[in-house]
Structures are given as C-alpha cells and as structure tokens.
C-alpha cells in the first residue's frame, strides 16, 4: 500500500511512531489494511467503554452507534454546492441523534456500497448530463457489471442542476433510478434543485432528517458538539466570513479593463473589486458569486412585449414591488427552460405551443429554445390579458453567477480580481447578451455589486509548496492560475509551475501576457506553452501543446506534479483529458485501461483537479 507519510504535527504520534507506522503500512496488502483497521477499531471500542479516559467527543459516536444504524451521506459535485448541503445535512442529522457521516464520492470505495443500510446521495450534474469528476467512478460502478444487489438499502437522492440545461439533474436521476433498480428502497422522493436552491435544499434537509429519524430511531439527546443551525456559507467557510449568497457583500468596482487588443473578436474584461472592508477571505481556486441585475433595456423591452406597465405592482420575492423592479432585480428574465415554457403554455392555451411541448417534438423544442430568450416566447405566443403577477409567477429567481477568482487573497487582500468574458451575440434576429457578464462589463462603474465567496475544495493548490504544478487554462480558464501564481509568489513556494494557455490570436487575446512574462523572468513561472488557434492555417489548441510536451509533462507528473484544468467543459476539458491519457499510456507504457487507471488514481490523490464549466 502506498502511504501518505504521517507528519508528526498532524497526528498525535511522535516522530518515531509515525515513521514506524508509515513503514508498516507500505508493506501491507489492502486486505491486511482492512483487517488492521477493524482490529484497531475493536481496541478503540474497548478503550472507549471505560479502560482509558477518552475525550467526550470520541465517545459520542460509540454511544450513538448503539442507538442507530449508520447513515452514509455521499456527495459529488464540481463546485462544492452538494458538499455544503451534505455537510449541513450531517450536522442536522447528528443533532437529531442520527449516526451520520459524509463522504466525498471520490474517496468512497464503491464496493462498500453493498454493506450500507442507509445512503443519501447529494449529486450535481454537469455538461451534457454527465456526472461531476468526483462522482464519475461511483456512477459508473452502479451501472456496471459489478454493481451489487442492494436489497435492504434505504436511500434518498438530492439532485443539483440548472433547468436551462437540457439534461437537468440527470446524474441525480441516474442514481435515484439505479439504486432502486439494484434493490434499494426509496425512503423520500428525489428532489431536483435548480440554481436557486437555498430554500428547497433547506426544506429537503428537514424532510429527510425527519424521515430517517422516524425510520432509524436514534438517540434522544442531540449531539453535544454541533449546533442545530446550518452554517451560512457552507461548512468549508472560514469562521470570520459573514457574507454569503443570502447576505452578499456590496462591492465597488475599482477597475474594469478590456484584456483584448484592438481588432480581437473577443471581449474579456479584467475586473477589480474593492474588498478592503469586507473581511472576505478566499483561497486560490475559489469562485466569486455575483448576484447580477438585468439590463434595464432588456427589462423595458420585455415589459413592452407583455403590453404591461412597469409601475404595475406585483408580489415579488420579498413583498410587493413594481414589475419593473421585480424583473430587474429578482427574476431570471432571459434564459429559456422547458419548465418555464410548460408553465407558460398552461396560461397561453396555444395549440402550436402545446404541440411544441409534446414528447415527440423534443428536438423541435430544443431548436426553438436555442438562441432564444423568454421575450421570444412572449412575442411568439402572446397571452391576451396576462398580468404582471401571472408573468412573474412563471419565472425563477435570478440566480447568482460564479466566476473563478483571478487573484490571491494573500497577495492582494483588499481586492478581488475577475476575468469576465462579455457574452454578446445575435440570434433569432435579436442582439443578445449575458446577464452577469454585461452587468460587470458595461454597468459596473460606480455600482455596488452584491458578491460572496463560493469555496471550491476541489480546486486547490497542493499544501506542499515544493510540489510542482501543471496548469491548463485556455481562454478565461486561465483566471484561477493567475491567483495560483500570485499565491505561490507570495508564499515564496519553491515548486515548479507550468502553464498551458490558449486563445485565438497571440496579438490580441493573450490574457495577462505581461503578468506571465514578469513571472517567467522572475523564475516563478518555470515554463509556459501557448496555443493560438487562429494564427496559422492549422488550428492549434492546448491539447496539442500538451501532446507535444508529452515526455516532459509525464516526468513532471512522476515527480509529484498536480495537474489542474480550468475552462470549457464541453470540448477543451475532454480533449485535454484524452491527451493526458495518451501521453500517460505512451510514457508509462500502459494500455488504454492502464492509463485510465493511472489518471483515476491521480484524481483520487487530488493530483488531477478540474474546474470546468
């Protein structure tokens, strides 16, 4: 077995003990390890029963284990939302006397699933209905040949998603259906969460805790070490932070510059916000949540299309406001989703629209939705006499948008930097733009922007400053790596840093070029490879540069490098993944399966981390 060396300062063991244990573990087979862990817990149980004075906290689970069956909460998500809710659930479950524990699906052994009696799955979906990276293995396992019979398992599923995607909550649906198919018993109905999930998640936690308590009994005494309150910003939030999604900080924009040179087809903004008074703390790899405002022009246009008055009173998210205010500040008024059209169709009573929603017209509906916004539906299928209240009832709450933070708190505690691609295009005969990106790009001057930190535990620098890192961040995907390098510069970390960047044109799209050049000159940026796709006849992308550097890149991995990938999930991340598999296969002399195993193992060791969207 490979053992992470036990550090004296992170364990109660002295140096000699730590060394002996590490050495022993390295000689063990997995079966021996399992046996020893059982043996040790046996010893622990007997000491807890009175022979040695154990700390109170350690005693508690033992007491509870007598009271109730273990409740295993598994989470899998790209950004950490599922993890935050899973942690809240565990705390509430423990408070209710349940013997609950949370596990990252990445660290969970699929084979253990058959031993479980009670499982709760919190899982997000990304891309085209795919599981997030850390859920991939477990997801594949339950659908694979080795999937066990799960008779006697009681389960619940909480699914995270975004209704603007076609395969909304698909991974959650997969788990829900498959666990049942394998023999499990669904204890509560699956709940599918949209981007604005706070309240629904809270309600779900309550339901689930009640149900499992009813089912499993559990101790009467609340767990002594936790409070019944869920933490505001998720379990990972540092204690000092008081701002959250529900209680965002109002930040002022200090600087807004376009990073593209003249003549570029792209428009990417570098935005700096003042966080001096905020107390906000973040780590490289975290994201910034922004609660945007809809473009007043778009609001006006929509109200006109509805034939309503902006001054009409409606009951919005928190009481009575004008229609104009509700549409500008409270609701998502652009993105089309199937549920929205369904609700709209009920009121519209329009034959053509109903037809479009029928099961055999899914493709036609997808075609229609592509490149269209809510206003197009309003114009194409008008509802005679619709009221403002009728309309806002169809809408979902304006969700926050997340941007990878492009600066290090350690290096710049008073500012937070973002790299924002302004989304502007024309489709279906109308100019369109992204809500948050355009709010930031065009209307952020002198404005207060509601922001909060969205922590991402799955995209973090190695704790070891000597460890090398390889960063792959084409386009705006390079943002977190600017934070990584700022942080490593500030920490005087000695580990090597290698960055892959790509964009369309060297001359106009080389984001933060002067920063990289400075860091290369200072020796911080050990190596940088760039791919500018449209500067020559044959398109060149980061994955091509990765392939070309195969041997060196593999050597870096072998000497402990962590590989980070940030950016476009659809094409880029997949192509980079394939390139990595290829070079591992070639240089480790492995077949396809072997290479996949090698990369999977890197992922487990948190040495292959992705933040893709």
């Amino acid at each position, binding site marked *: 077995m490979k053992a992470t060396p036990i550090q004296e300062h992170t364990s109660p063991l002295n140096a000699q003990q730590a060394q002996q244990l590490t050495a022993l573990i390295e000689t063990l087979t997995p079966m021996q390890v399992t046996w020893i862990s059982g043996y040790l817990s046996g010893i622990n149980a007997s000491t807890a029963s009175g022979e040695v004075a154990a700390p109170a906290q350690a005693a508690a689970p033992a007491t509870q284990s007598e009271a109730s069956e273990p409740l295993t909460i598994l989470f899998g998500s790209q950004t950490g939302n599922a993890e935050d809710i899973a942690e809240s659930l565990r705390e509430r479950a423990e408070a209710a006397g349940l013997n609950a524990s949370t596990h990252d699906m990445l660290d969970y052994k699929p084979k253990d699933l058959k031993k479980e009696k009670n499982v709760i799955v919190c899982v997000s979906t990304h891309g085209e209905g795919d599981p997030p990276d850390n859920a991939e293995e477990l997801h594949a396992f339950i659908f694979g040949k080795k999937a066990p019979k799960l008779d006697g398992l009681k389960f619940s599923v909480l699914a995270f998603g975004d209704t603007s995607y076609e395969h909304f909550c698909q991974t959650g649906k997969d788990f829900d259906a498959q666990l049942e198919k394998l023999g499990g018993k669904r204890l509560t109905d699956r709940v599918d969460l949209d981007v604005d999930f706070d309240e629904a998640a809270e309600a779900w936690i309550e339901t689930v805790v009640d149900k499992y308590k009813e089912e499993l009994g559990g101790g009467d005494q609340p767990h002594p070490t936790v409070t019944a309150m869920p933490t505001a910003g998720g379990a990972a939030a540092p204690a000092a932070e008081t701002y959250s999604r529900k209680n965002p900080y109002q930040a002022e924009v200090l600087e807004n510059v376009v990073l*593209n*040179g*003249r003549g570029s087809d792209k428009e990417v903004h*570098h935005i700096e916000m003042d966080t001096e008074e905020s107390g906000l703390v973040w780590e490289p790899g975290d994201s910034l949540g922004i609660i945007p405002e809809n473009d007043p022009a778009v609001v006006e246009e929509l109200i006109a299309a509805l034939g309503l008055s902006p001054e009409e009173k409606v009951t919005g998210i928190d009481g009575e406001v004008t229609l104009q205010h509700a549409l500008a500040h409270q609701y998502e008024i652009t993105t089309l989703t199937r549920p929205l059209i369904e609700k709209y169709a009920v009121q519209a009573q329009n034959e053509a629209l109903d037809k479009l929603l029928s099961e055999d017209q899914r493709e036609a509906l997808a075609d229609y939705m592509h490149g269209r916004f809510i206003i197009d539906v309003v114009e194409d299928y008008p509802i005679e006499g619709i009221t403002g209240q009728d309309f806002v009832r169809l809408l979902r709450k304006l969700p926050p948008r997340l941007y990878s933070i492009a600066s290090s708190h350690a290096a710049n505690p008073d500012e937070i930097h973002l790299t924002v691609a302004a989304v502007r295009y024309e489709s279906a005969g109308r100019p369109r733009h992204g809500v948050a990106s355009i709010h930031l790009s065009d209307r952020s001057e002198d404005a207060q922007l509601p922001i909060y930190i969205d922590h991402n535990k799955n995209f973090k620098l190695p704790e070891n400053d000597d460890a090398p890192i390889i960063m792959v961040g084409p386009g705006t995907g390079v943002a977190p790596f600017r934070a990584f390098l700022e942080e490593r510069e500030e920490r005087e970390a000695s580990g090597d840093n290698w960055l892959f960047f790509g964009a369309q044109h060297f*001359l106009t799209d080389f*984001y933060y070029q*002067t920063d*990289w050049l400075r860091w*290369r000159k200072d020796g911080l940026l050990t190596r940088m490879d760039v791919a500018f796709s449209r500067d020559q006849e044959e398109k060149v992308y980061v994955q091509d540069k990765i392939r070309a550097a195969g041997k060196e890149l593999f050597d870096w991995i072998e000497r402990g490098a962590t590989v980070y990938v940030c950016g476009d999930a659809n094409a880029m991340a997949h192509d980079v993944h394939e390139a990595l598999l290829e070079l591992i296969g070639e240089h480790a002399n492995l077949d396809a399966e072997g290479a996949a195993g090698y990369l999977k193992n890197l992922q487990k060791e948190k040495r292959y981390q992705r933040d893709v969207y």
Partner: protein
Amino acid sequence: MSDDKELSPVEHIKIASNYLRGTIADGLADELTGSIAEDDTQLTKFYGFYQQDDRDLRSERKHSKLEPHFQFMLRLRLPAGVVTGEQWLKIDELAHRYANGTLRLTTRQTFQYHGVLKKHLRPLLQDAYQVGVDARGACGDVNRNVMATANPDLSALHREVHDWSIKISEHLAWKSRAYEEIFLQQKPQGEDHEPIYGKTYLPRKFKIAIAIPPENDVDMFANDIGLIAIVEDDKLVGFNIAIGGGMGSTHGDEATYPRLASVIGFATPENTLEAVEELVKIQRDHGDRSNRKHARFKYTIDDHGLGWIHEQLEERAGIKLKPAREYNFERNGDPLGWVEGDNGNWHLTLFIENGRIADFDDNGNAHYGQYHGPAGLKLMTGLRELAKIHTGEFRLTGNHNVIVANVKPEDKAKVEELVEHYGLDDGDKHSTLRHSAMACVAFPTCGLAMAESERYLPELVTKIEKIVTDAGIKDQPIVIRMTGCPNGCARPFLGEIGFVGKAPGKYNLYLGAGYNGERLNKLYRENIGEEEILAELTPIIEQYGAERNEGEPFGDFVIRAGIIAETTEGRFFHENVGSPEAA
C-alpha cells in the same frame, strides 16, 4: 583613438555574439513574446531588421496587460535600387503575406517592410531569397545598401555604375554564416571569419553612394564614401572619392553635427575597390568604439584631419590618390516623366509621395488608417500591374520614387495606359513643391521619432503650396525635407527647407541647403509648431518670389538675402544659427 576608453555596450554585444548569432534563434522560438532579447535587437540590424512597436497602441496595450505590439521593420539590400518585374511581384506579395500590406521605398533606394511579426521574419527572408534578394547588412554597423544614380539618361553608363554598386556591396557584405544558419536554416559549415570587418565589425553604420554628374539624386555627399563617376568620351574613367558625409546628430549636443563628404582625390576603376576597402578599414581601426554618437567616419576624419587619411591610405596600402577631376552637379531631385535612353528604350519616373506604396481607400486611408494618401489611389495595385507586363527593370531612386526603366518603344503605350488607368503620378498629378518634398517614416513605428513626419508632411506641404502659389512661384522647385528626429533618414540637413522633429507637433526649422546637395542648411528657428512655421516661411517665400535672380535656387537666395548664414562645413553647422535680426 579609443583604445583606453570604455567600449560602448553595443561593442560588448558584438564581441559576445559569436559572429552576430547572439541568442537570436532562441528569441525567434519564444512564443510568449513578439519581441526578441534586448541585446539581440542590436544584432538583428545586421540582418536588415529593427525591432519596433506600434507607438499608437503602446499605452492602451499596457492597460490591457498586453506587451507592446512588437513588430519589425525589415529593409532589403538592393544595390542601386534595381529590381526585375518578377522580384517586384514577389516583394509586393511578401508585403501582404508577412507585413502590413504596404511597402515603403527608402531614401537609400530599397524597400522597407513595416509591421512584420517575429514569426514572419524567417519566412519573409526565405521567400525573398528565392528571388535573389536578401537583407544582409541593410542595417547594422557595416556597409549599408550601396546607392547609385538611378537616372537612366545614359543607360550604358548606368549599367556600368550599377555593376559597381553590386561589386562594392558584395565585397563589403558581412560573411558570417549566421544569416544562412538562422534565417535560411542551412547547416553550419566550418568556421566563420570576417576578412574585412573582424569580430566587432565597424564602430557604426557606413554608407556608400555613387553619383553620375550632373545628377546628385543619391545625395552622394551625405555618405561616408561618395563616388563621383567621371565620364570622358562617354566612358567611365574612374571616380572622384569623397569621404566623411553623414546626417545624424543629436538635439542639444553640439559635438554632433551633419557633415558633407570631402572630395579627396581620384581613383581609376582598377584602384577604386581597393581604396574603398582601405577607407573602411581605417574607420574600422580608428573609429570611436566608446561613444556611438561620435563613431561615424565623419568624426574620425575631423578628429584626425584629411591629411592623416591620405597618410593612412599610403602607409597601410600604398594608395596614392590622383587629384580630383572636374565635376558639376545640378540637382538632387528626380526629373519626373518619360525620357528616352541612348539605346532607344524609354524610362518613366513616377512620383511616390513619402515613398509609401499602398492602396488607399475612398477616405484616403491605408492599413486601418495608419497611412493617408490620395482618396481612392490604388498605387500598390497599379505598380503591381505594371510589374506584370514590364520587361525591363524597376529602379528605386534616392528620393523614394520609382523609375520604370528600359521600356521598349513598342511597350510604351501599354505602360502609359496603366499609368493613366491607376492615376499614377508621372509629373502632372501634384505640385512641383510636393514633388520636391521627402519625409522619413517616424510615428507610429519608429522608436526614435519625436514628432510625426510621413503622416504630417503632406498636409504641411498643402499649406506651403498656398504660400508659393500666392508668391507666384508655384513651378519653382524647393527641396523640402522632414524627419521625426535628428538622425537624418530623409537627409533633412540637405533640405532648402528642413524640418526636424523635437516633440509632438514641434520642429526645428532649417534653411539654406544647396539645391544640388553640396551645402548643408542651418537652424533658423527652434521648436516651433505649424502656425509659427507658416508665419516664418510666408515672408521669406514672398521675398524669394519678388527678389530672386533668374535660376537662383531658394537655398542660395536665403543666404544671399542675409536671412540665414551659410554653413560652409559640418563642423560649423552650429555657428551663427537663427536669423541675423533674432541673434
């Protein structure tokens, strides 16, 4: 002598460069920057190119966290400015493929590309090489492009002089294989050696021009070595040799000055190449390598005296020059339009404003508005079409004009048709004044520019045209030269009216150069803007219109009228400046 003085930084770069290689190859391979290493920027001049950046974009790109828009100015080596139609077409094609889609004719009879990106340097030089053109020594501390009178009145003689320009150019070309290795990607071949230059080349640039009197279109006296072709009975019998010309100076530094070459004697064709080589070697051994502002041959000569040069020639190589022969120059401009040569072929000189070859759109813009010209003038296309049908050669002139040379009588009509169709200027499209005006490149690409030049002179000329018209002398040629800095690319100190940039919108005004290029001008007013320029020039031009003698050039008149003192020698350039009443 500079032996005991500290060498200038550029000397150290040359010494360490291993025959001009430096780290140029590494710099070309670096994809993170459009620039090359700073030290290498000194070396690449020897390969014909300068690193520059678009100064119009400098500040906005810095704001966008982008490095400056680095690009290169690349100058070809083209002895006597002669190219075939095939070469013209290739040179034009490369401008579109690898540069900014325009061509700049220089005042040393060659083509200059602007806006060449680093990654395009190699392919450009390789493609040019395919048609027998290179850029070796077009810049750098070596002999530069060798000029020769372009006027083809005497075509047999022109060919002979052209052969001389090639012979000198080849003889003095640097020999290191670095050019072939780095840019043509040929394999290394044995050891390098530089028989004439040695490892450190020359202390500074070196310029040679050959003039055939009475034409001084090459401004022969502005060169380190000027050769005056002596013709007797229609036969070239040898050359008068003049040495120590050069324009460059530094504002506010009176130890620097422009100087015209001094005629030191006559050499027969058999002795000319040897004499030229020995003069180059004298400069190699005695030029100042500690101070680049004092490193041109002109300072070596003035520091030691002309007598010392004669001693050196004799001591080192046993060369004794004969007394100089009689010669007479009439002008340094180009006569435009058609002339018939002695072999019955025809030659057409076309005016190219600022030497900028481009297609201008309906608003008069080219290259995204970076250049301005007559609205709708498709100059580049017109010349390309001419190159497609022309069976003779093209000759670039020292006044950045173009001669379509050796047009057979039966082809003349076809050429005329294209000239007419594209509205090319064979002498009747612009005023005499504009035809006599010349500007350097300056903003936005030249790193040395302090003020606009190419982009400004045309509109200033329009305003001066009005003055000369009002003064009743609109057909009188007056040589106007403008540069954005005092380094002299458009030979501003040989302008009857000279403008040298000091700051954006501000120029030093010089008056009184010789119409035939044999006398320097002198500073008349310092650091003035357009309004003052026009206010100063108006009364002088009016007075010239009223009081000039028959055939008296403007530059002679301002001296005779006491408006400006005569500059008799470069050393005295800074004396008696300004107008007498102002002094």
